[in-house]
């Protein structure tokens, strides 16, 4: 019973603080693997010590001090050994360590450097995501593997390879120089948004892990916002917060996906909406407009409407136009044209969307958008054929069911035109 209690406390302390502890350790040794190993050893040590002596006053500080000591021992042994074998090529530096048992007050916050390194552009996006979740969020290899539907072995290898690449290329654990900061921050924000979007697909089952991912993305975005406040970092947090406000309404009881149009808006979390809007206004006040702020603004406009019909489409279309300046991708064009269709410009939207066929023929929402527009235009046969094509393309059974329901609607309702 006592052991269980200790293990639970240890697990909680680890999850809440491992990112900060690892970041602080890496800041002094520049080696992620050594830092992780040191924390791992300290956890084993804590399991015993906390059971024997009771919980320390500040469990996180205890873990930090213990892992720092462990790291120093490992480094000292390594230094002795390598000095003998590898001659004097080793660079030495003095590290002042003040250890007064468990009384170290603050764990220095070096997480920003660690986030930038985990999201280093020399790593693949997959590796960036995995490394960020592992080192900053303290997720286990198994948890990450499950969230991204790969085997534990594959995920383990991906992490080992990434850490090896960081080490042999001497990639530093530093916040990038000013001239590189913009591009590098973009990579960090993309990784965080990707982690959130992975959680957004709540209909793939595995809902528990997926909720964790959402929370981790919010936590990471908050850290970046606090340590590096900028228009876009605040914009991303606003965007994720607004998305998150619809979490309950997005899935039905069977974990089926519900599109924004069909959501029960009374299920939206109004506290989160208020928080998201406030964050967005703060972001816009930074006067550094960017794609996350614009997407957050679009989301905020949706959150203001009591019903789908009340949506301020004119403003949404205007925001998409702005967004196209930052991200002139066909997908954003499609989203803008979909908004044009909802605002009543069906024929215009159809024409514009058809012009994107070369770019988006393999993109499911392209066909779904056309199916919907043809339905609204009263072209039943054409709508059904787009739905059939979409259903054939779709690999997700729950979304397929959603599309089938929509197609059913075309069959049963008389042709309508708006």
């Amino acid at each position, binding site marked *: 019973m006592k052991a269980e209690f200790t293990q639970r406390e240890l697990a909680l302390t680890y999850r809440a603080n491992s990112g900060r502890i690892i970041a602080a350790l890496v800041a002094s*040794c*520049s*080696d992620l693997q050594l830092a992780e190993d040191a924390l791992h*050893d*300290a956890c*084993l*040590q804590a399991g015993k*010590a906390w059971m024997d002596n009771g919980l320390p006053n500040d469990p996180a500080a205890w873990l930090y001090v*213990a892992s720092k*000591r*462990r790291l*120093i*021992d490992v*480094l*000292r042994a*390594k*230094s002795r050994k*390598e*000095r003998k*074998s*590898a*001659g004097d090529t*080793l*660079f*030495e*530096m*003095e*590290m*002042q*360590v*003040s*250890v*007064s*048992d468990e009384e170290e007050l603050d764990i220095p916050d070096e997480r920003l450097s660690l986030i930038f390194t985990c999201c280093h552009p*020399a790593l693949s996006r997959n590796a960036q995501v995995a490394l960020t979740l592992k080192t900053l969020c303290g997720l286990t290899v198994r948890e990450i593997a499950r969230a991204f539907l790969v085997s534990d072995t594959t995920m383990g290898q991906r992490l080992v390879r990434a850490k090896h690449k960081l*080490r*042999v*290329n*001497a*990639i*530093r654990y530093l916040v*990038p120089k000013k001239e*590189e900061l913009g591009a590098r921050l973009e990579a960090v924000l993309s990784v965080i948004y990707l982690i959130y979007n992975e959680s957004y697909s709540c209909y793939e089952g595995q809902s528990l892990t997926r909720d964790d991912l959402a929370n981790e993305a919010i936590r990471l975005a908050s850290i970046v916002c606090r340590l590096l406040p900028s228009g876009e970092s605040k914009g991303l947090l606003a965007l994720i917060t607004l998305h998150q406000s619809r979490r309950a309404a997005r899935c039905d009881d069977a974990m089926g996906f519900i599109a924004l149009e069909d959501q029960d808006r009374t299920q939206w979390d109004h506290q989160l909406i208020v928080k998201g809007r406030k964050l967005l206004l703060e972001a816009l006040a930074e006067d550094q407009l960017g794609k996350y702020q614009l997407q957050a603004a679009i989301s905020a406009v949706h959150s203001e409407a009591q019903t789908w019909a009340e949506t301020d489409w004119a403003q949404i279309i205007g925001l998409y136009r702005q967004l196209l300046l930052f991200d002139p991708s066909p997908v954003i064009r499609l989203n803008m044209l979909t908004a044009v269709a909802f605002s009543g410009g069906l024929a215009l939207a159809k024409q514009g969307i058809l012009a994107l066929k070369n770019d988006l023929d393999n993109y499911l929402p392209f066909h779904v958008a056309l199916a919907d527009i043809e339905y609204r235009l009263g072209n039943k046969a054409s709508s059904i054929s787009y739905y059939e094509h979409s259903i054939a393309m779709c690999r997700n059974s729950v979304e397929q069911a959603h599309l089938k329901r929509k197609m059913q609607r075309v069959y049963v309702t008389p042709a309508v035109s708006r």
Partner: protein
Amino acid sequence: MIMNSRKSDVDYGVFINIYYRGVFMQFLAMIYSTEDQDDVDFDTLIGQYAALEAEMEAAGVTFSGNALQPVSTATSVRSRNGRVELTDGPYAETKEQLGGYYLFECESLDEAIRWASKIPSARYGSIEIRPVMEFES
């Protein structure tokens, strides 16, 4: 046990080996491009390379490098079961060919990337950067 015997309240400084901090490493930047597909004429390109090298010298970067003769002059060598086999041309036919290289001494990949991105051929080809492996003596 993991805990070491020192558990006093004393501050102590330790000499610690920090692997790479402040240590210069060698990075090989391999310049790949489609031959005869330069975006400027030869003299301009040579001038741009000269300018880059002057910039690196001014910045105190230790480097060496060479351009290579076209891939049509290449010979591939394989030694199999004691027999040396020669092939005319490169081992694999690819569109982009190794046209030259730089060997930089840098503190980290980031610094190597900074220089590699200034190589004129990076505009139309690609530069592959790899750390040079170090063996224990």
